C-alpha cells in the first residue's frame, strides 16, 4: 500500500499541491483525474521522485521512504511516461535489460530471459532486436511498461497512458492495465479522461482545483 500524506508543492509563489493525501491499496488501481494544469502530473512526479515535495510523507506498506533517493537499488515506483522516454540508441532488449543489469546487478542471461518473458507476456515477442523508432506508439508504450516491470516495482505509475496513442488503442491500454491488476500489480494512473478512469479504476481521486484534491 502506498500512502502520501499532506503533500505540498509549489513552484515559486504558485501553489500546485496543497495538503494532498493519496492512498493506493494493494492490487488496486487508483486513478487521478483532473483537467490539465490541476497538478496531477506534479503529484505523480513527486511520487516518482522527479520533483522534490516541499513537505509531506511517503509511506510504502507503512514504512516511510524517500522517492527521490537514488542510492537504493530497491525499486518502489515504476513509471510509464506519457511519451515513454525510451532510449532511442538502444534496442528493445537493451532498453529493458539496462537497469536490471546495471542497478540490480543481474547477469546478462538472467536479465535477457526476464526481458523475453516480459515481451512475450505483452505480445512483443518478435520485437526485441528492434529500435524504438521502428515501433508503433502502442508498441512503444508496452516496451516502456516492460522496462518498468523489469525492475519489479511495488507500484506502477502511468502518466496519461492514453493521450499519446490513437483513440482506438484505448481499449488495448485498458486491457493491459486490468491484466496487470489481475496479476496483483498495484497501479496509479494519471489521466484527464474520466471515462477511461471509470473503466479501470477501483478508486478515483479528482484533482479539480488544487486545494480541494480529495480522495472520495
Amino acid at each position, binding site marked *: 500500500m502506498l500512502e502520501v500524506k499532506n503533500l505540498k508543492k509549489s513552484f515559486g509563489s504558485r501553489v500546485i499541491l496543497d495538503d494532498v493525501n493519496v492512498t493506493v491499496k494493494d492490487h488496486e488501481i487508483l486513478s487521478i483525474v483532473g483537467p490539465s494544469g490541476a497538478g496531477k502530473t506534479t503529484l505523480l512526479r513527486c511520487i516518482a521522485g522527479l520533483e522534490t515535495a516541499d513537505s509531506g510523507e511517503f509511506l510504502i506498506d507503512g514504512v516511510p521512504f524517500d522517492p527521490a533517493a537514488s542510492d537504493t537499488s530497491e525499486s518502489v515506483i*515504476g513509471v510509464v511516461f506519457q511519451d515513454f522516454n525510451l*532510449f532511442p540508441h538502444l534496442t528493445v532488449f537493451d532498453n529493458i535489460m539496462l537497469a536490471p543489469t546495471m542497478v540490480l546487478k543481474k547477469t546478462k542471461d538472467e536479465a535477457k530471459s526476464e526481458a523475453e518473458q516480459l515481451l512475450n507476456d505483452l505480445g512483443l515477442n518478435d520485437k526485441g532486436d528492434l529500435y524504438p523508432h521502428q515501433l508503433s506508439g502502442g508498441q512503444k508504450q508496452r516496451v516502456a511498461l516492460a522496462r518498468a516491470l523489469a525492475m519489479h516495482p511495488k507500484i506502477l505509475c502511468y502518466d496519461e497512458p492514453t493521450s499519446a496513442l490513437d483513440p482506438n488503442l484505448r481499449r488495448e491500454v485498458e486491457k493491459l492495465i486490468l491484466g496487470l491488476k489481475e496479476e496483483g500489480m498495484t497501479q496509479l494512473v494519471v489521466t484527464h479522461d474520466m471515462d477511461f478512469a471509470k473503466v479501470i479504476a477501483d478508486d478515483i481521486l479528482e484533482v479539480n482545483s488544487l486545494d480541494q484534491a480529495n480522495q472520495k
Partner: protein
Amino acid sequence: MSIHYVSEILPSLFQGAGLTLQLFFWTLIGSLPLGLIVSLGLNSKIKPIKWVLDIYVWLMRGTPLLLQLIFVFYGLPLIGVVFERYDAAIFAFILNYGAYFAEIFRGGLQSIDQGQYEGAKVLRLSYWQTIRKIVIPQVFRIVLPSVGNEVINLVKDSSLVYVIGLGDLLRAGNIATSRDVSLVPLLLVGVIYLLMIAVLTYILRKVEQRYSYK
C-alpha cells in the same frame, strides 16, 4: 619532376608526416576526454565551475593557436614551467582542441531531451551510469559530424608547430623547396595531406554508419 628526385625527398617528407600523425594522435587522445569533462562542467549548476570553464574556452577560442604555442613554449618557462618542444606542442594542442570539443559536446548535451534523464532516474540509474549509458552514446552520434570536422582541421593545424622548431610534414617540404628551388616537394606535401585526410574521411564515415540507429 624525376622519379629519382621524388624518391630522394620522400623519406624526409614521410618523417615529417610521422610527426604530424603523432601530434594528431596524442592531441585526440587528450582533447576528446578533456572536452567531454569540460562540457559536463559547462552544463554544471555550480556557477564557479562554469565561470572558470567559460574563461578557459574563451581564452582558447579567442586567441590564435599559433600564439598559444608560442606562449606555452617560450612563455611558460618564465614562470618556471618548461616543456620539451614536442611536449609543448601536444600540451597546447590538447588545451586548444579540448575547448573546441567542449563547445561541440555542450551543444550535443543540450539536445538530449530531459525525458531521457527522467527515464533513467526512475529506473534508479546513477548520474554517472546515466551519462555513460544514456547520454554519451546519444551525444556521440549527434556530434560526430562536427567532431569529424575538427579532427580534419587538426591534421592541417598541426603544421603550426614549425613556430617552435618542430619538423612536421609542411616544414619538411618547405626545407626541401628552399634548398632545391623547386615546388615539387610542396606539391608532394599537398598530396600527402590529401591522402591522410581521405583516409580519415573514410574512417569517419564508417564510424558514423556504425553508430547510426535511424
